[in-house]
């Protein structure tokens, strides 16, 4: 903190060091925000309400602030006070409480106190908090938003929030410590290509060894062996493939037919390893698709420079999955005019939350920019002409109720199979593909399926998804957004007869294991 205080102003003129700060205006009080502005940061109304209840100065100590941050200790029911800090330039909050919601009620409460002038300028942030604030403040304040985005390890704002409050930063989409994009020099790119190729060769040898020895070999039952393979792929800068290896490891012993599921996935890994070693000979769009599957990153600026796809984008469904301690949110959008599919990703570190504010059926009128690659669905949000209606609490008596959403266009189950099959024929390693079907849930020999006049497809995913889907349907055909996976359809949203969409997608976490994968 001492080291950082000179640079950040975490130590104030009234602090123990007696320093006045090296940056001159570090200790100048930032303009305080209004209560309305503060409460707008709360991820939901419950947090806003709870924050008001803990915004009691008597329950806080060590309150302080400077030009860029506010901090304090909240004395809750636990033995240790929670350390709470807010970097006002983000704004980004840190709190040591266990809440998954971010900002949590303590961070919002801290801002409420600050807003109400109950936090005096100056003071010391306690050590861990101070270190975090120092680290954040060390970012070059003059850096343009793009540079800040590349360097910022914080999880991004939720999808479809094209600008961050106060800073105007666009939602980030970097995923953990992913390797950086190829440098400007050919030599650097060649070095990376060589590293990836070596990693893929090593993976392929391990795959062949595994099949030669048999899937019941004790080594494969040890997750550490899979983690070692994944670590080598990370070293080779093929992070996405490394995560995929770990997902296959979760299948080992997880079901009666696990060896068939694992064998099928080893075959797909082999396919990718082969494709990755032949990148120069592949068509450009296929090579880009392979690169995406391996984990090559693409600069956001490059994506945003692509021609925009302007449409009224309907929120078709959402899915949160936990991948290597990162919660990945997939927001599936479908163009009302073009019927094109798009995927907007956002991420949060495990333990932090992604606000769930966009309802199925909400519509965003604006531009999406698509990542390169054959059958690529991932996009970045560009210009927003009309933002989607947010899921907000009722604000006043008599306020108009939420308008029913716009259900995305649906097809039959056979039509959905056609769509999925066409995509997989071009990109065989796809793990998921979105569909909207008009079908009814029903039970077949104890397993839930969707059925219509063209046939049936099995449902999969966490068991907790199904009751709400069935309840909304009442056993009748309804419009359902789902992700195709090798194990079946994972329901994401169901649109009732009144057109109102209900989000039933996976919430992430350890219960979110795919089951019943079939070749």
């Amino acid at each position: 903190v001492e080291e950082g205080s000179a640079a950040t102003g975490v130590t104030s003129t009234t602090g123990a060091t007696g320093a006045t700060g090296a940056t001159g205006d570090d200790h100048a009080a930032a303009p305080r925000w209004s209560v309305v502005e503060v409460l707008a940061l709360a991820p939901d109304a419950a947090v806003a309400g709870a924050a008001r209840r803990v915004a009691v100065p008597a329950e806080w100590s060590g309150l302080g602030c400077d030009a860029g941050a506010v901090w304090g200790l909240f004395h809750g029911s636990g033995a240790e006070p929670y350390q709470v800090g807010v970097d006002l330039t983000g704004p980004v909050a840190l709190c040591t409480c266990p809440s998954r919601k971010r900002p949590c009620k303590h961070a919002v409460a801290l801002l409420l106190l600050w807003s109400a002038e109950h936090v005096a300028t100056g003071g010391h942030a306690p050590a861990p908090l101070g270190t975090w604030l120092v680290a954040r403040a060390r970012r070059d304040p003059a850096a343009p938003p793009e540079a800040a985005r590349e360097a910022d390890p914080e999880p991004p704002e939720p999808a479809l929030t094209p600008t961050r409050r106060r800073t105007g930063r666009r939602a980030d989409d970097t995923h953990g410590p992913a390797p950086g994009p190829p440098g400007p020099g050919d030599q650097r790119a060649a070095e990376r290509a060589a590293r990836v190729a070596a990693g893929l060769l090593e993976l392929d040898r391990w795959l062949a060894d595994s099949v030669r020895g048999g899937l019941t070999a004790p080594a494969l039952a040890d997750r550490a062996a899979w983690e070692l393979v994944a670590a080598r792929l990370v070293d080779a800068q093929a992070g996405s493939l490394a995560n995929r290896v770990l997902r296959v490891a979760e299948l080992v012993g997880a079901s009666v037919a696990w060896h068939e599921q694992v064998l099928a996935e080893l075959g797909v890994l082999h396919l990718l390893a082969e494709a990755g070693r032949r990148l120069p000979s592949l068509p450009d769009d296929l090579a880009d698709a392979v690169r995406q599957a391996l984990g090559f990153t693409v600069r956001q600026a490059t994506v945003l420079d692509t021609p925009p796809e302007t449409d009224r984008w309907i929120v078709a469904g959402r899915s949160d999955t936990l991948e290597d301690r990162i919660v990945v949110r997939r927001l599936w959008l479908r163009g009302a005019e073009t019927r094109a599919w798009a995927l907007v990703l956002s991420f949060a570190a495990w333990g932090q939350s992604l606000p769930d504010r966009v309802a199925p059926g909400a519509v965003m009128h604006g531009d999406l920019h698509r990542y390169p690659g054959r059958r690529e669905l991932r996009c970045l949000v560009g210009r927003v002409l009309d933002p989607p209606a947010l899921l907000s609490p009722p604000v006043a008596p008599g306020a108009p109720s939420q308008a029913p959403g716009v259900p995305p266009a649906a097809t039959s189950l056979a039509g959905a199979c056609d769509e999925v099959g066409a995509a997989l024929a071009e990109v065989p390693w796809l793990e998921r593909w979105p569909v909207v079907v008009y079908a009814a849930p029903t039970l077949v020999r104890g397993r839930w399926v969707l059925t219509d006049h063209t046939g049936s497809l099995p449902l999969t995913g966490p068991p907790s998804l199904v009751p709400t889907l069935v309840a909304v349907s009442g056993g009748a055909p309804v419009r359902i957004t789902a992700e195709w996976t090798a194990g079946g359809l994972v329901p994401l949203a169901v649109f009732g007869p009144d057109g109102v969409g209900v989000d039933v997608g996976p919430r992430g976490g350890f219960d979110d294991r795919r089951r019943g994968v079939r070749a």
Partner: protein
Amino acid sequence: VTRHPASLADLWDDLATVGLLGAERRPVPVPPSGPVASLVAQRARTDPGEAVLDQVAALVAGRRAGIRPGAVAAPLEPPPADPRPVRPAAAGRRLALLLEAWPELVDEWLARLVAAGYRLAPDDAVALLARTRAEPQRRQAVVAACGPLAVWLVELFPGELSPRGRRQPAAPAPAVTPGTAPAAAPGVEPPADLAADLPPDLAALVHLPGDVLADALAAGVTSGRFQARHRPLLLRLLQQAPFASLEPVAAALARAGTNAHTMGLALSLADFAATRCQMIQELLP
């Protein structure tokens, strides 16, 4: 003995066996003539592990791309019809907020919902049935608000939604006439024992005119007579307060919350009063 499966389905079975036992112990099968055979023929593999992986990759890619629906399945028997309209959207959002912030008000919300002639939305029904598996009293109110959907869902999802504890036969859903509260549901007014818990001086406040009650509460908070430890009692008082009192009470407490020492309690009580006021308005018949 090297196997020559006649179909791709047989090939998959053979590959699965080889994969399980190991290509060192079982010979690699020869695929039937067709696209898989053509693809793997392009690769001259000496390593049996690689040869198996080639076949698996080609077969899995083909099978997944060739996905077709299974047989048409019989639909579920639908639940009996419930003539009541689904609760307004604003009330649904209010319920979500109550469950997180003010669970004290959920019982009253349910009672008012039924009395107003509404039923729960299906997603509310699942959430509340799951939450009240071990709360028999509250579950009665939930079942009344769900209507026949409750029994239907519990039969389909006993593991997720049936009551915990002693196994009981599923009770038929109470007959519901729009605009009336089923006998099983608690009355619209909060239970009388809430008032019984209040000290006499607080209980006497309940029936004061709204502006008088508001001034009394604000003065009590501002003067320090009411402190954080009194919060549960004050919340119970506000649960008893007539609808007409809630808005002035919320406004007065919000004004009283500008002082550093009173802010937490005052704003909390103001939020509770405002929430209950809005909840009642959203569920008027």
